[in-house]
């Protein structure tokens, strides 16, 4: 059977959603393992090539910033938080959908979570890796980053536990570790399946080592099942806490535009919103790239799009409350900032944010849009741009217009800022391209179980 799958034609006739052939056990394993053992498609080489090129640029940018200093970015007093922080928030946000899908939807017993959970969690890990690099370089002394750890030192100094930046560090580290183990234990049975499917001894050994001797006996499954639910129950509040704390980085300060109690939930909504956009883009590309129309059905994309609409509406609600709060508090600087955002020099980015985030997603109310992969990709791209602009509007734009007119400033965007904006996609996508070729992109065991159940209904 395995040899057959290797010769799967590159372009299978597209299967329509409705005509379901009788389900054959093992066909799911066949199909998903074909992304690993099948031939490397041309688009993979192109995508991998472009992203590794970007990755090189990213490495060069970070090196330059480490060697020359953060002055290469356009940051200066008063705009001390620039592209590094904007990207940090953007990338952590991208990561949030993965854990949200795998943990929260598991607790809600949503069967369609299996379609997205594996690669969405991989996205979480890679997005966190990308995000983690920004504060590292933003502090200007990457080699001194360990100062943030509570370790006994000759200076007798300890971290400042009242600082949200320290909370952030702890929260993101915890989040990374928990996501990794959640992802890995769910991978064990699938790695075992790859071990059993592999033909070359070296490949067999590779997956054999990674699968840790998983045999799929009843005790293993019972343990995995239980642990998944425990971890889901643990990870759901964790994922909410991480971006809340990122929100607190701002909300705890007194700068106009930052000092809002809405920030923690608003940030969580925005994070899951942008993460879902990335998940939908990736799912759609995977679907057509590997002919996975049956494994990633339009119905599931539809569900993800609905979730994106909901979180998008939470974000829009955040905008409204933010503006209302600025007016209602009667604080002149807050209100002046709101007016400046909408009508000042940064008005295009503000209105861009409103349009890309708030207006475009209204198309998702229509089922026909939610079931159209091309439109979904376009809307998701719009969401990604909009959410990036939102972080831009929050970080440098707020800082450009604080209490003293003497410190009003326009952010001076340098070429390094632009490179810092574009090149991180290289790291993220290179990792994703490698991931889809060496690990099963969908959880095989869960997909099989759901398929068996559905075939009996």
């Amino acid at each position, binding site marked *: 059977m395995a040899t057959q799958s290797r010769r799967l034609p590159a372009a299978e006739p597209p299967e329509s959603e409705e005509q379901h052939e009788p389900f054959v056990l093992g066909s799911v394993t066949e199909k998903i393992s074909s992304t690993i053992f099948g031939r490397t498609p041309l688009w993979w080489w192109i995508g991998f090539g472009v992203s590794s090129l970007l990755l090189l640029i990213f490495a060069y940018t970070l090196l330059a910033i480490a060697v020359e200093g953060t002055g290469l970015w356009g940051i200066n007093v008063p705009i001390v938080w620039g592209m590094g922080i904007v990207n940090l928030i953007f990338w952590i946000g991208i990561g949030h959908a993965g854990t949200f899908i795998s943990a929260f939807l598991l607790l809600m017993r949503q069967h369609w979570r299996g379609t997205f959970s594996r690669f969405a969690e991989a996205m979480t890990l890679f997005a966190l890796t990308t995000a983690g690099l920004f504060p590292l370089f933003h502090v200007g002394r990457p080699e001194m980053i360990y100062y943030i750890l509570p370790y006994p030192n000759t200076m007798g100094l300890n971290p400042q*536990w009242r600082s949200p930046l320290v*909370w952030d560090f*702890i929260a993101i580290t915890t989040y990374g570790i*928990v996501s990794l183990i959640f992802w890995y234990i769910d991978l064990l049975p699938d790695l075992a399946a790859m071990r059993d499917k592999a033909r070359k001894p070296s490949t067999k050994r590779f997956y054999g080592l990674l699968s840790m001797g998983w*045999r799929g006996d009843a005790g293993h499954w019972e343990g995995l099942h239980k642990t998944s639910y425990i971890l889901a129950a643990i990870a759901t509040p964790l994922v909410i806490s991480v971006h809340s704390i990122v929100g607190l980085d701002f909300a705890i300060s007194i700068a106009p535009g930052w000092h809002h109690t809405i920030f923690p939930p608003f940030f969580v909504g925005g994070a899951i919103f942008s993460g879902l956009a990335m998940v939908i883009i990736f799912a759609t590309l995977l679907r057509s790239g590997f002919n996975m129309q049956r494994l990633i059905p339009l119905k599931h994309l539809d569900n993800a799009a609905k979730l994106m609409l909901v979180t998008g509406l939470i974000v829009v609600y955040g905008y409204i409350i933010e503006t209302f709060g600025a007016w209602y508090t009667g604080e002149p600087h807050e209100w002046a900032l709101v007016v400046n955002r909408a009508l000042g020099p940064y008005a295009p980015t503000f209105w861009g944010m409103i349009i890309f985030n708030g207006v475009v997603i209204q198309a998702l109310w229509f089922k026909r849009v939610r079931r159209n992969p091309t439109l979904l990709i376009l809307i998701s791209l719009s969401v990604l741009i909009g959410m990036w602009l939102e972080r831009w509007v929050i970080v440098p734009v707020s800082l450009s217009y604080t209490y003293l007119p003497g410190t009003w400033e326009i952010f001076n965007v340098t070429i390094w800022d632009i490179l810092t904006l574009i090149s991180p996609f290289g790291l993220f996508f290179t990792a994703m391209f490698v991931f889809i070729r060496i690990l099963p992109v969908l959880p095989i065991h869960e997909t099989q179980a759901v398929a068996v159940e559905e075939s009996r209904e």
Partner: protein
Amino acid sequence: MKTDQPVSMFGLAAEFEDDRQLLKAVRQARAAGYEDINAYTPYYVEGLTEAMGKKQSNINYFLVLIGLAVGALLGFWLQYWTDVINYPINVGGRPFNSWPAFLIITFEAAILFAALTAVAVLFLRSGLPLPYHPIFNAPNIELASSERFFLVVRVQDRNFQLRQTREFLQSLDPVSVSEVPG
């Protein structure tokens, strides 16, 4: 393994095509008095552990709760100790023990410890990692991760008799019954 000696045995394996068939077989094996049995499946089969007569235990939840509590205590203690005992710094008259600000790291530490406990318990209770296991000698066992379901009766079982057990397993209508050397 020398060929002139009788091959030691792990058990007898019956191969099934369907999880419902397997569940039925497991129940029948239990009814026939076999205790030392195990099942190998490509996905989580609801009710399999119960059918095998294994008791459900809540030790996982209990240990994870302990991990949660230990993490919370350690997390809070770390902050309390550094800020109140080890190096108290008066910042604008704020209390040394600023417990509301400490709660966030307390929470994160609790989550981290609970998650690590959950995974440690999973690995310890399922005996992983384990590079070698006799079941890997069973014919067709590589299908157990994708499309086949196996029921194994161990030689250690009180009622294990090679001929009778084989006949019993045959009667369950499996795809095949085979000896698992081990």
